[in-house]
């Protein structure tokens, strides 16, 4: 295993072990998403046709908000005991740290989605009229889109005052195309009228562009004095 990937793996393993023992992020995300689902189900009383139309939006808004909870903890955790400073002076590549953080968040949000989606289906009586397997690439690509930018912007926002507020303010405007693609793609699959292909292609483009941009600029952000 090359040095780069072994550093990534070590850092990722550390994050997963920390999360496994504390369960801070996953618990708060789960409860938050649950609250969103319940509140939405009170505010709308949709029939099957209508819920198929709006469910794509609801589910992704719930996941986006919940993901922010986890993303905010990503780097804040490293500020305690000056872990981030130690990383800065170490010769390890900045990108391996970034990838480990992004993959860790990706896993946490995927776990959240795997647990919450059945609940959503139950609450809103959902049944896909289009090809249901397409929901998997939409979910995976969409989650990566939120997580890669979210991890990057969380690293930016730890350098500001009131960082917890700052992250969504930075993340949401930039995420609009990805969010639109996830919502429209999900609605297309659930409704079965349109093809979701364009939205999947858009998500792939978005992921590629912003993954490259993040890897390109992360070192600058980490090593800023």
């Amino acid at each position, binding site marked *: 295993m090359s040095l780069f990937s072994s550093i990534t793996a070590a850092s990722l393993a550390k994050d997963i072990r920390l999360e496994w023992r504390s369960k801070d992020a996953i618990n708060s995300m789960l409860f938050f998403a649950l609250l969103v689902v319940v509140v939405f189900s009170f505010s709308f009383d949709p029939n099957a046709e209508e819920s198929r139309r709006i469910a794509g939006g609801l589910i992704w808004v719930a996941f986006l908000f919940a993901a922010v909870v986890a993303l905010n903890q990503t780097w804040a955790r490293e500020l305690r005991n000056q872990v981030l400073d130690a990383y800065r002076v170490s010769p390890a590549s900045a990108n391996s740290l970034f990838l480990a953080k992004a993959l860790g968040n990706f896993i946490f949000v995927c776990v959240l989605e795997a647990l919450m989606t059945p609940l959503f289906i139950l609450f809103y009586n959902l049944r896909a009229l289009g090809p249901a397997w397409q929901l998997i690439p939409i979910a995976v690509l969409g989650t990566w889109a939120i997580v890669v930018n979210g991890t990057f912007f969380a690293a930016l926002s730890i*350098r500001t005052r009131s960082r917890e507020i700052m992250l969504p303010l930075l993340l949401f405007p930039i995420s609009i195309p990805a969010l*639109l693609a996830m919502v429209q793609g999900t609605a297309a699959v659930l409704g079965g009228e349109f093809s979701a292909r364009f939205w999947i292609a858009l998500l792939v483009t978005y992921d590629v562009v912003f993954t490259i*941009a993040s890897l390109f600029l992360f070192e600058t952000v980490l090593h800023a004095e």
Partner: protein
Amino acid sequence: MKRLFPIFGAITTALLGFALYEALIAAPTEQTMGNVQRIFYYHVSSAWTAFILFAINFVASIVYLVKRSEKADVIALVGAEVGVVFCTVVLVTGPLWARPVWGIWWAPGDVRLTSTLVLWLIYVSYLILRRFSSSGQTPMIAAVLAVFGALDVPLVYFSIWFFPTQHPQPVIGDGGAIDPRMMHVLLLNWLAFSCFAALLCWARYRLEVLRRDVDETLALESLLEPRGSR
């Protein structure tokens, strides 16, 4: 430099006055929309000016990331600030024009409307970031965000382009020929608006440079203050 500023200001004022006369009185009245259409000269000129300012912000941010020059950072800040002002004008005049012509204030899903709105959101978040971040890292963080924002713009455009919708078609630019007289007035207005934007940027640039000088001097003074005097 200092003497040039009032001269440029006077030229801009004259130009804006002339452009106003041309747009409200001299330009021919549009056949179907009537006088309402005259808002077009302000709407489109502001939009073009805003886009140029955002482009300046993007270029200056990249220059800052490469060279770390403070000048580039000030230019990026000024470009974003004045750009947001003009973008706000676009977003306000748009619905004012849309209501009598399309019958609705806002067409959700229209490419130009929505991507302008998202652009505005991105640059407002850029300004908020600058306001919230303390210390010497602000320019770097802001420049990185500006690059991300600029990368986002084409994606926003394409995503909304495909958005399924039944909105009214945009009035300009879809193959419809525009009266050469109107085009002339539009370009004149654009020139006047660009001069106005340049004037604002100039003033804001000087203000920002002075503000940084003052901050620096105050910081130095507090360091140099003799201990015994307290």
